[in-house]
């Protein structure tokens, strides 16, 4: 059964140095507050997994949390590059980052096969592309029925999956809605799962029988963190702060400026980010 904990305790008791960790979210419901807590607790040598490592992973990589990254698209959506990610790959700052690069279709399939407790996923993927030439983790198998050659990638089964969701009930069941990404698969394929939520309610109330709910008994810890996805968004609660994503391009370009921002808004404060987090950093 899920335990209700404060965020600090939830991270302390689930994320260890050297773990394989996915903080998932496909633009929507990105667990920023939980990622910032991992940075504050100075976890090291994590293998980070994410389809779309964006600003949060840029921050974690720049703060030296990650040893390796398995991913399929590493950019600031609609804005451009992730400068801390680039600095790590191009210049080894703050230290070298091992990368295992995939395409979205393969990452999504690998999360699915991980949730299904299979060793690998198969798909018609990477046909004609250079990915298999630079990633030895992309292999080929032959279909035993048709002899078609298919791509195979190892399943994603994390030590810890971290996600953000709209609501938990008092029994620790979690409801997600809107763009769901691969969060269910990440949780179901992980040894431990941490969920931050906007609110805890007595009852989910009237809902469709097909509502996406993760039952309490697949979750390790739940922490109530309102606005825990900011500057990403939570459907029904607050919109994406697109201005922050635009501003991050400037903040993250320069190492010192990046470090100053992280000191002020992540290391020196415990409360979640808000629109004020662009103060004092205007270009």
């Amino acid at each position, binding site marked *: 059964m899920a335990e209700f904990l404060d965020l600090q305790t939830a991270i302390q008791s689930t994320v260890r140095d050297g773990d394989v960790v996915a903080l998932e979210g496909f633009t929507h419901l990105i667990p920023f507050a939980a990622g910032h807590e991992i940075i504050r607790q100075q976890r090291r040598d994590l293998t980070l997994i994410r389809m779309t490592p964006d600003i949060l992973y840029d921050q974690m990589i720049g703060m030296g949390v990650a040893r390796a990254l398995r991913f399929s698209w*590493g950019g600031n959506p609609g804005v451009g590059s992730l400068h801390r990610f*680039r600095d790590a790959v191009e210049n080894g700052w703050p230290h070298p980052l091992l990368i295992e690069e995939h*395409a979205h*279709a393969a990452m*999504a399939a690998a999360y699915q096969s991980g949730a299904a407790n299979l060793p690998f996923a198969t798909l018609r993927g990477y*046909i004609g592309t250079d990915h298999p030439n630079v990633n030895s983790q992309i292999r080929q198998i032959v279909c035993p029925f048709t002899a078609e050659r298919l791509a195979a990638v190892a399943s994603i089964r994390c030590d810890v999956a971290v996600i953000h969701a709209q609501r938990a009930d008092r029994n620790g069941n979690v409801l997600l809605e809107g763009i769901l990404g691969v969060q269910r698969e990440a949780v179901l394929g992980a040894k431990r799962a941490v969920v931050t939520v906007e609110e805890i309610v007595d009852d989910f109330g009237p809902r469709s029988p097909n509502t996406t709910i993760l039952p309490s008994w697949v979750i390790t810890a739940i922490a109530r963190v309102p606005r825990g996805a900011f500057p990403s968004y939570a459907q029904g609660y607050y919109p994406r702060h697109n201005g*922050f994503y635009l501003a991050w391009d400037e903040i993250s370009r320069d190492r010192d400026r990046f470090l100053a921002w992280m000191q002020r808004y992540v290391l020196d404060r415990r409360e979640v980010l808000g629109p004020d987090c662009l103060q004092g950093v205007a270009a």
Partner: protein
Amino acid sequence: MNVKPATRSETMIVAASRALKNDDVCFVGIGAPSAACNLARLTHAPDIVLIYESGTIGTRPNVLPLSIGDGELCDTALTTVPVPEMFSYWLQGGRISIGFLGGAQIDRYANLNTTVIGPYDAPKVRLPGGGGAPEIGAHCKQTFITMALNRRTFVDQLPFITSFGHGRGGDHRRSLGLTTAGPTRVIADMCILEPEAESKELTVTALYEGVTRDDVTRECGWPVRFADTLATLPAPSEQELRVLRDLQERTRIAHGAVAA
């Protein structure tokens, strides 16, 4: 005409929108493809089905999304499915007629690079990577590509093939077991290119008003070929420009308002 004449980028978006039909089911990339697809929906193709890789199917955004997963896409969609389902049932399942991609670099056989500039292990520039593009290029019945044409983008040799177009040309696609048509049109900001039937080499088939063959030859990174009969694409109409500019103005205000 009492509206300001079209910029090159506006002309490209309008030309790209005209390539889409009302009964298309289109997998939309972010940036120029997204603008073109929504312009088509707001002008001549009101029933076009737009799909973004975040899982939103049949979405009708009032403003252009900054990312492929903005709330606006989900709010206005017919339905939103989980991402693994999007890539397996809908894309690999063969339900999509058009994939609309952009890219950082393209070669003469319409292969795309969005991964690295320079060697993979010691890149000069690390780009975001493939995302959905490798399988969009493989599984959509055909793909359209839209990007500005210059020496940095239309290159002789790609450092990395992120998304396979026609490979080394000829029947390369088919020889790898791909049954889809692949890139059938590249809508640039000066001209439209299409793969030549046999060789599959990109060939200029239409120039935009006011653009010459020399302009294209000068900017293209390989000795580009021209079709025997070269069409001239009519400039954007006043209505197309109005709708596009309104859409971009709404978008600017929406993203700016969130920032304030």
